[in-house]
């Protein structure tokens, strides 16, 4: 069963969060992955090799141990990227490593991270995953979660939504994207060879990326300043 780690949302319809106070947001992601270790494993077991929960838990736990309270949001993202890329490997090392590295790279010089900044970061991070992994929307992968998530976020801003609303719409789109993988035939990764046999179940990476975005967005929403 999927587990949601609680966070305390503040009702602040404001438009930035302080980079230097953002380590807690990344910790929330770590806890989410840890809490969903078995669930992710069982989703991966359906049409993959069953290790997605173990892999993710190992990487994020290692990152969690290296996180310091003094880290900025950007630095915390970099810690995650390094743990995944240098110590975990697998598919998730390069994929989520690139994701968090891009979040770091596109925020490291910012003191405050605005909704517009975050929109750019999320797009860059998604594109980094596509660049290294080569997956497109519809391939049944984490891309099916990430692409709608960043697009929904940017549309929301274009519709003059505030940061909180945009995060909510992005999370909802991520969830819909995740759910969309159920109907898809895998075209990438380990399950790509299953053809029709891969239809009917969720993609493990689509699930984990939804959980990450949910925690990330919840954490940001709780940190918004005015």
């Amino acid at each position, binding site marked *: 069963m999927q587990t949601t780690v609680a966070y305390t949302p503040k009702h602040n319809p404001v438009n930035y969060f302080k980079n230097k106070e953002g380590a807690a947001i990344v910790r929330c992601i770590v806890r989410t992955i840890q809490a969903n270790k078995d669930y992710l*494993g069982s989703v991966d077991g359906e049409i993959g090799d069953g290790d997605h929960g173990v892999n993710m838990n*190992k990487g994020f736990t290692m990152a969690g141990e290296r996180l310091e309270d003094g880290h900025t949001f950007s630095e915390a993202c970099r810690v995650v990227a390094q743990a995944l890329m240098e110590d975990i*490997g697998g598919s998730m090392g390069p994929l989520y490593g690139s994701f968090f590295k891009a979040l770091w790279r596109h925020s490291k010089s910012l003191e405050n991270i605005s909704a517009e900044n975050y929109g750019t970061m999320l797009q860059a991070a998604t594109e980094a995953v596509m660049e290294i992994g080569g997956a497109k929307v519809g391939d049944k992968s984490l891309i099916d979660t990430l692409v709608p998530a960043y697009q929904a976020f940017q549309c929301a801003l274009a519709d003059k939504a505030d940061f909180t609303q945009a995060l909510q719409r992005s999370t909802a789109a991520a969830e819909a994207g995740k759910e969309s993988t159920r109907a898809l035939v895998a075209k990438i990764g380990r*399950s790509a*060879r299953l053809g029709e046999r891969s239809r009917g179940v969720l993609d493990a990476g689509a699930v984990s990326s939804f959980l990450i975005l949910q925690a990330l967005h919840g954490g940001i929403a709780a940190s918004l300043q005015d």
Partner: protein
Amino acid sequence: MQRIINNPDDVVNEMLDGFAATHADLVARVPNNHRVLKYKQSPVPGKVGVITGGGSGHEPAFIGYIGENMLDAVAVGEIFSSPTAKSFTDAIKAADSGRGVAVLYGNYSGDNMNVKMAKIDADDDGIAVKSVVANDDVVSAPKSEPHKRRGVAGEIFMWKIGGARAALGGSLDEVIASAQKAIDHTRSVGIGLSSCTIPAVGKPNFFIKPGTMEFGIGHHGEPGLAITELKTADEMASLALEHILPDLPFAPGCEVAILVSGLGATPVNELYVFFRKVAEILQSQNINIHKSYVGNYFSSLDMMGVTLTLMKLDDELKQLLDIKCNAVALKQF
């Protein structure tokens, strides 16, 4: 889970400790990365380096093919999970004598990505790196989509041939060309009779019903082409050859090398029973067997099952296959 382990998260590290201690005559660790092992004499001066890497749980692959005239270094991942880009980079560095390094690995998305990243890093360090991606598993994708096929036990032939070419003084391009030719001439198929369990997961992620078998199963238990009733050894051998022979194709009059590997929990005598029929069928089709390897060469944790691999030989491949080697899991005088 009836296993001989301690903390499941420590299996890979403890296995490497035991392996390095057992084979200290052939294998050495590298500084600052406990997930890379190298041939004790590597980098061999003047020789192109040959490395691979992949997830653990396939022992004796990949580390067992480290040694004289085979692999110079191996990047080691978690169970069924690609090594890090950093480990691939460190393996490349451990193997490079200045003439460049050939990375001969299997077609899995994690390995593809990590090798890609490692190549960029090695490039930054001025090491010439080229790679060959093994895709010998015939049933993992149609013949028209070879880039989607998995690499399986045929990788051993690729390492043997690439390693031999390097040992003979081949340039990086020559090593790559020979290794590519080896894998292009190689086809494999797997049959699973039981599931396997990743120790840290603690339970199998799929189940093969007694009385059935999974034809075309992958090296990590990836579902195969079909679930059928359990066949006899002879029927399994025919079925495997029915998929392998037309794919290359292997025509009457050609010469082949054969590798039959158990998947981890397969009694060795049954591998020979299976091989017997393979040889009989090939003989009947006038396909000549030059050399055969039967044993636990490339496994999948505790899976019961068998893989069959054929490499079509020409003069070059035959010469390179026959060259002496001294690796942990493959010794030829």
